[in-house]
C-alpha cells in the first residue's frame, strides 16, 4: 500500500523581526513586524505612532479607523517606513508597553529564541 504524505516542513528561513521605531533602522530590507497606532492618513501612506512613541510611515495599508492599533508585517523600506504585506487589527485597547518590551527582549538578550 502506498501512502502519500503531505509534509509540512519546518521553515525558519524568513523570520519576522519584532521592531519598534528604534530598532527598525537595523533591519532595512528585511521582513519586520511592528505595531503602530494610525494617526494620519494620506491615501496609501499612513503615519503611525510606534510602540516606543515615535513616528513611523506605513505604505500599503487600507483604510483603518484612526487610533486603532495595527500590527503591520512587511519589508522595512527605509529607517522610518515599512511596506505592509499583511496587517492585523489589534484593537483599541492594546498594551503598547508590553509589546515594546518584547521588541527589546527579542532583539537583545533573547534573540536566540526569535531569530
Amino acid at each position: 500500500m502506498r501512502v502519500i504524505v503531505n509534509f509540512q516542513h519546518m521553515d525558519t528561513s524568513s523570520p519576522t523581526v519584532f521592531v519598534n521605531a528604534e530598532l527598525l533602522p537595523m533591519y532595512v530590507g528585511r521582513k519586520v513586524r511592528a505595531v503602530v497606532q494610525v494617526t494620519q492618513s494620506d491615501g496609501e501612506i499612513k503615519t503611525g505612532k510606534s510602540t516606543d512613541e515615535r513616528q513611523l510611515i506605513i505604505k500599503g495599508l487600507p483604510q483603518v479607523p484612526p487610533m486603532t492599533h495595527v500590527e503591520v508585517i512587511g519589508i522595512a523600506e527605509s529607517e522610518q517606513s515599512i511596506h505592509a504585506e499583511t496587517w492585523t487589527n489589534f484593537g483599541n485597547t492594546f498594551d503598547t508597553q508590553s509589546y515594546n518590551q518584547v521588541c527589546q527582549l527579542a532583539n537583545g538578550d533573547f534573540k536566540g529564541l526569535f531569530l
Partner: protein
Amino acid sequence: MFSSSQFESNSAFSGGGFTFSHQSQPSDSDPSPAKSRETQGLVPVTVKQISEASQSGDEKSTFVINGVDVANVTLVGMVFDKLGRNTDVGFNLDDGTGRIGCRRWINENFDTIEMEKILDGMYVRVNGHLKSFKGVKQVVAFSVRPVTNFDEVAFHFIDCIHNHLQSKSQLQGVTPIQPQSVDMSFNTPVKNESTGYQTAPSTQLSGQFSSDGLKSCDQLVLDYLQQPSSIGQEKGIHRDELSQHLKLPVDKIMYSIRALEEEGLIYSTIDEFHYKSTACG
C-alpha cells in the same frame, strides 16, 4: 474534550505511535515539580525553539528544549494553508520566528466546530503535543483557539522568555521557590482565554513575580542592568529607574540589589542608588 478515543485513533493514524501514558492529566495541578518534567503542562515556545530542539531518543521520545524534556507545547501565531479533510485539519502556524505544521484530528463534533472558526491569516493559540514524523517536527493540536485580545501575542512571547529563564536557572542547580505555582499562574490565563482574559500582560507578570519570591525579581534586575543600554551608562542605573521600568516596588528592587551585590554581579557607582552590572556586556 480529551476523550480516550482521541488518543486511540491517534496511534492508529500516526503509524508509529507516541504514547500519552504520561499525558493522562494535561492540567497544571501536578504537586511534585522536580520529579518528572513531562508533567509540567504546556510549555510556551517559539517555532525557532522547536526547530532547535533535539530528541532525547528515537522518534517516539520527547523533545529537549532549554535542557528540559518537553512533550506538550503552546504556541501563538498566524494560520496559513489550512487544509480540511474528513479525518483531520492541517495547517501551518507562523509565529514570526518560523513556520511549523500542525494537525488537528477530527474525532468529535467539538473538533469540527472549533476548527471551522479557524481561517487563514487568523491569529490563534495552539496547544498540542510535539512530535516528529520522518525527521519533520510537527504539532498535533488538541486545542486551537482564535486570539481575541491581542495582548496575548505579547504575553506569549514574554511567557516563552520567562520559561526559558526558569529552565536555565533550574539547570544551573538553583531551585526557584515554588516553580509549580508560577507555571500554574501562567497557564491559567492561557486556558481561560476564551472566557475573557482581560488583564494586561505587564500587570499579570509583575503580580506573579511578587508571589513567586525574590528569585525572579533578582533576575529581572540583573537582566535590565546587563542590557547594552544600561552597561553603556557610566554612572549606572538609578534604582528608581529600575522600579519604574520593571514595575516593581522600590523595596523589592533594593532587596534584589543587595542580593546581587553580595553575589558580585552588580556594584554601586556614584552613590548607593546607582548600580551597574559587573559583566562587560
